[in-house]
């Protein structure tokens, strides 16, 4: 589904990603872990098409298409979803207007008519249950005044509505208490299927107790320095990142 080949990304003149190779197949869950500043969020943003990241080298092939040719909105319409580490508050744009515009933009791209109002409300009700989101939240402006947990739930709620093929969840677990973590992970698990794939970006192993990954990668200094199965996450939990850092720095 996703093929990243020797991807190098700059922010201004600074090279953040220094040659990433990653292959994700349908049905898989990949976890990307790594210490702070290793480039995890840069990778997520580059996949979603944030324009201040400058791709200097390499390719991102998604479903046979060169992703870098697509605008952020077209990537979303092709089925890529980014769950934000810091979801943006947008005062004055109501959740309902936002979600309806989003869904209908996707439908239009697929040549479908806009969703009738009744069906839209029904869909919202249905998906709200997945993340146990408060009805009241959808009557407010996008993320405005939401608590940290509510913002993250809202991301998963949007994911449930949009049914992406490839979901990239950037530090979705940060700032969540144990209940919110359970709800968010349940949401993600319910949405797993053999047709879609998930990339989970996280600093801690904690989330991976709930969402079990097929592959775990360690990102350090802009490169994937280690890949393994879920036991790698356990190892990192026990020993921290120090041993990997030492290993990599010794070889450098």
């Amino acid at each position, binding site marked *: 589904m996703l093929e990243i080949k020797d991807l190098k990304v700059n922010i201004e003149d600074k090279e953040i990603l220094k040659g990433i190779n990653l292959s994700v197949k349908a049905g898989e869950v990949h976890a990307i872990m790594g210490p702070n500043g290793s480039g995890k969020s840069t990778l997520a943003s580059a996949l979603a098409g944030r324009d201040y990241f400058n791709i200097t080298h390499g390719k991102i092939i998604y479903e046979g298409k060169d992703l870098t040719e697509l*605008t*952020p*909105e077209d*990537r979303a319409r092709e089925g890529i979803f980014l769950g934000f580490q810091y979801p*943006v508050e*947008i005062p004055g744009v109501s959740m309902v207007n936002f979600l309806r*515009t*989003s869904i209908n933009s996707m439908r239009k791209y697929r040549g479908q008519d806009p969703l009738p109002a009744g069906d839209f409300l029904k869909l919202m009700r249905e998906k709200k249950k997945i993340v146990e989101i408060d009805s009241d939240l959808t009557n407010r402006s996008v993320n405005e005044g939401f608590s940290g947990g509510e913002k993250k739930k809202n991301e998963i709620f949007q994911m449930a509505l949009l049914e992406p093929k490839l979901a990239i969840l950037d530090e979705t677990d940060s700032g969540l208490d144990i209940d919110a973590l359970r709800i968010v992970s349940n949401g993600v698990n319910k949405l797993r299927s053999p047709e879609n794939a998930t990339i989970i970006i996280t600093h801690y192993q904690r989330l991976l107790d709930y969402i079990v990954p097929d592959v775990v990668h360690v990102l350090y200094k802009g490169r994937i320095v280690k890949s393994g199965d879920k036991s790698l996450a356990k190892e990192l939990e026990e020993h921290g990142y120090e041993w990997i850092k030492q290993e990599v720095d010794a070889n450098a």
Partner: protein
Amino acid sequence: MQTLDKYLELFQKNRKQIGKDDPPFMKKLRDTAIASFRQSGFPGRKEERYRYTHLEPVFDGELSFDFQPRQIHFDDDEIFSCDVPLLDSMVVTVLNGFFHHPGKEALTRLDNGIIYGSLKEAIGQYPDLVKKFLGKNAPTSDEPFVALNTAFSQDGIFLYVPEGVRMERPIQIINLLLSDKNHMVHHRNLFVLESNAVAQVIICDHTLSPHMFLTNSVTEAYTGENADLDLLRLQNEHNNSCQVTNTWISQERHSRCQHGTITLHGGIVRNNLRINMVGEGAETSALGLFLTDKMQQVDSYTVIDHRKPQCTSNQYYKGVLDDISTGAFNGKIHVHPDAQKTEAFQTNNNILLSDTAKMYTKPRLEIYADDVKCSHGATVGQLDEEALFYLQSRGISKEEGRLMLMDAFTWDVISKIKHPSLQERITELVGKRLRGELSRCNNCAMHCQE
């Protein structure tokens, strides 16, 4: 010849024609006004108040001026469709500054004592009533354009709401400009609300021919004790026009006033607003929203005078500027020594959509009392790039996302408009304007531009 001399000469030469049926008090008012204007002249480039809008060259242009209403025969329905058609309002039409009332009374007095119609007619029929108010709150020494208007204005709308009377329907004043050459208009409105009276007034401006129009209008409003005035102005002249509005409002004890200015189109627009709180516990809110592109210039200048204790004022002005348009906001809150327990707030937020649009904002507080709550804040920025990316990441196109963010930005002001159907209509008009779908000829059926 200097522009000032041109106007002094225009006045002297036509002294007999200008207000030829004037009662003595009006003659005196005009003489005082022209004397003030002779002294002040047009505000120069160095004058702080007019730093960003230089109007003398506009007044210096070749412009016709009418001393009597022109006999233009037209059917309102045929050439003009209103911007706010669903509003159940009493509509009065002003054509080139004169009350337009073919086949109807120039002045109407309703059973409940409400009087509305031509100001000129009111001066003739109710000289004592008009004399008590006209020019009292908008002194000609304060503002050159008020002086100029007082000297030259021929007509406009008069509204009188007696004590305790609540107007059931809003009055909608439609200012139409229609000419076969470049034309200047000075018109004048006077609204009087006695104590406990309630009124809502909507003023719309429209240009119906492509000629350059220069309008210099004065609106004076008096709100008596515990009276309630809602005054909304919708500016939608074409971009080859220049409009100077002067709105002077005086508020007695516990009166409430809501003033709003929505500017959709217009070449050079200067809005002077002065609210004079002369009674204790008065409340006022002033809203402003302007959307500019191309070479438009919109300049808002407000002064809120807190003269008595326990008055509240809230100013909320927003602008969205594109292309090489220019905006200015200069807002002064003046709290006089007597005005303890004043609460005065002012916000001015602006968004620049291009690198070449310019916005000048200058909030000013002058406080001479010690027990007050006042704040002001001004911002000039761009659309939030993070928010835009968030929308895009959900499949919403950049264009649509920008519009959603602009709608949200403007909704902050529009949501404060009280009348629901008016709020709805303005939302629609502003939305269309932002989408570039609102032509200034939308409400004209003459299709002269197409």
